[in-house]
């Protein structure tokens, strides 16, 4: 496979994951805003912008006018936000066009029809009544593409480059979401005993679509430590850091097997493995959640760079 094609697959799936994660954030934000009073709702929308890393760009346009419609339209379709969902999805499609001859026509059609749907959804500003549908369409796009992949793609190097892209992006995004909310999850807070905002915790879970699974596993009990343990260390949940880590490890191992050669990325992965498997929830609270997340992100980025290098993504 061409290095450029491998790069295209990797990024096609990174962008797909990014679009989907952003939609999840919006979904959680909407839910919070609806359950708060007016001033607090604004605070929730502000937090959505901060979490998605768009504070500077947003305030350049709206200053501190964090109204719901401003926020979701900025995130979904505003041209002044280069990372808006529509252009992120356009990147998915551009990369899919680039790798058109190595993806199945099912995968291509899933991307292309989703793109047509989103273009239609986002032609004009989204009204509140429509936000749920649009967010649903973005998430459905992700599911359709992943489903088409699972059902129709050859399990060769291309498949593993795509999956590696998915899990690098997912790990990065979850670490970022947790880091921005980490103050909510500090143990000290739970000792204060003041009116604890379990709604905020619920929101953290909801941002990564983990609320149902968490409740199922914990019989409805909710606490900071439990949430962190679930989102960081529980490798049964497909959006936990541990799951992203081991999925990435498996795909990189498969690539090494197919290429009869291990690269720097496999080496870095082994180091990361040692770190992850030795980590307990107590360690995380001892060293600090923030520091742990920073370390995770740095390792994740280093692995992504090593993949590009090892497999000659760029001339």
């Amino acid at each position, binding site marked *: *496979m*061409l*290095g*450029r*094609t*491998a790069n295209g697959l990797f990024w096609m799936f990174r962008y797909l994951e990014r679009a989907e994660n952003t939609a999840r954030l919006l979904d959680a934000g909407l839910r919070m805003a609806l359950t708060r009073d007016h001033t607090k709702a604004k605070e929730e929308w502000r937090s959505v912008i901060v979490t998605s890393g768009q504070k500077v760009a947003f305030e350049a346009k709206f200053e501190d006018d964090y109204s719901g419609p401003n926020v979701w339209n900025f995130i979904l379709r505003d041209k002044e936000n280069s990372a808006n969902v529509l252009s992120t999805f356009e990147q998915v499609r*551009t990369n899919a*066009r*680039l790798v*058109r*001859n190595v993806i199945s*026509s099912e995968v*291509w*059609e899933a991307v*292309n*029809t989703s793109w*047509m749907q989103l273009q239609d959804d986002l032609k004009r500003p989204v009204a509140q009544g429509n936000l749920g549908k649009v967010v649903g369409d973005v998430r459905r796009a992700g599911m359709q593409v992943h489903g088409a992949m699972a059902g129709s793609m050859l399990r060769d*190097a291309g498949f593993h480059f795509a999956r590696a892209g998915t899990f690098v992006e997912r790990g990065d995004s979850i670490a970022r979401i947790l880091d921005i909310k980490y103050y909510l999850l500090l143990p000290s807070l739970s000792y204060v005993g003041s009116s604890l905002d379990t709604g905020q915790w619920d929101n953290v879970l909801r941002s990564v679509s983990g609320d149902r699974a968490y409740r199922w596993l914990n019989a409805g009990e909710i606490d900071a430590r439990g949430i962190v343990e679930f989102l960081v260390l529980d490798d049964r949940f497909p959006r936990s850091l541990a799951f992203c880590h081991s999925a990435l490890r498996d795909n990189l191992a498969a690539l090494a097997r197919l*290429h009869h*050669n291990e690269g720097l990325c496999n080496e870095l992965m082994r180091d990361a493995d040692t770190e992850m498997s030795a980590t307990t929830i107590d360690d995380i609270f001892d060293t600090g959640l923030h520091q742990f997340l920073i370390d995770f992100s740095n390792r994740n980025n280093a692995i992504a760079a090593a993949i590009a290098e090892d*497999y*000659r993504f760029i*001339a």
Partner: protein
Amino acid sequence: MSEAPANFDEMYAEGGSVRPAYGGYCEWYDQQDPSWLKRKHREAESNFRKTGITFNVYGEDEAEERLIPFDMVPRVIGAGEWRRLVRGIEQRVSALNAFMYDLYHRQEIIRAGRVPQRLFQNNAAWLQQMVGFTPPGGVYSHIVGIDLVRTGPDEWFVLEDNARTPSGVSYMLENRETMMAMFPELFSQVDVEPVATYPRQLAKSLAACAPPATKGKPTVAVLTPGIYNSAYFEHAFLADQMGAELVEGSDLRVMDGRVQMRTTRGFQPLDVIYRRIDDEYLDPLTFNSDSVLGVPGIMDVYRAGGVTIANAPGTGVCDDKAVYSFMPEIVEFYTGEKPLLPNVQTWRCADDDSLAYVLDNLEELVVKEVHGSGGYGMLIGPTASKKEIAAFRKKLKTTPENYIAQPTLALSTTPIFTKSGLAPRHVDLRPYVLVSPNGVDITPGGLTRVALKKGSLVVNSSQGGGTKDTWVLKD
């Protein structure tokens, strides 16, 4: 029936009876509910959008992807008719390849005085670098598109030879896929020759021209200028269908006397490159030094037998309309036979007598630029304004050698589907021809282009033309 056809109509004979080739289709058509057909018509478009069969158009600021309109009434050619066309096309394509070999070697045809020297001296597509070199397998044009028009039951003419980079074959294939998906029952009622064999034949025919340096099974790649090229969809489609690599110039590098591609395992040699970039961008060391689309040094590798380039550089000489005007002589010179497929009568404005005739009859003629293509830079006398004619008259007097003129043909019509039923529109036909050392292979079918505007003779997609599925009937 609907509007009465003004020209030879391929479906309806005078008096409204259905011609034999269309018998099966019409029988089916007459049984269909018109409102159901209208729904199908809309469905076809959404199918093309979904599969992304588009071409890119560049406007002021951003690229736009457009569909070439598809008409769902097939263009049908009988088995006997097709056999006659095939013989004519084989003869013409063989002569074209022999002509190119000769032009780049001893130039016997010029020594014999059958064509003038200016034919290649004035030809921008002529490449000095090809002189004395014979491409692997002796093939110059591996993929040829011969544009045909029809004016009567047995009157077919060649309108244009595309020996450089004929495009549009993906439409031939996707139009058929779409027809089969929309009207499966039609194909169980009418026996139509399949076209889906084309990509396999193309792969085989390219592999048969592998260069001497090839080790084992030849590696074939399609070289594209990239996703912003107007025909990118077709490049990706063909690579996908052939199971070939889809490469860009930036993926390739000349190493150890071979053209190699950057793969995830390191650099690997390529044997045959089906290039969809023009000669001038192919090698910045030899041609346009600003080109970032090509591969520095590829021409040296090519001349040393390290790679096959299809079509060969320098094949554009045959797309020139001045060469076209000599095709009857060219066919006769190399095959020793009279051409089976005639040219459209052509006046070369470089000749004084012809020029005088053309200037006197501009209102009735079609005037074309010798190097032009895509339906641009031409004058259609009967529909042109006085001003346009005057402007052309001036151009003809200044640079007569840049123009040829032809009579305005009464192109045949075939019905298209409109809101008010079937209506005749003018069509042409581009069959796709593959040439390898093993012979000439012509896919039974081709691309029918149709002028969607009533009365229009311009079928180019850039100017409001559409396409149809083209059926060749089985015996």
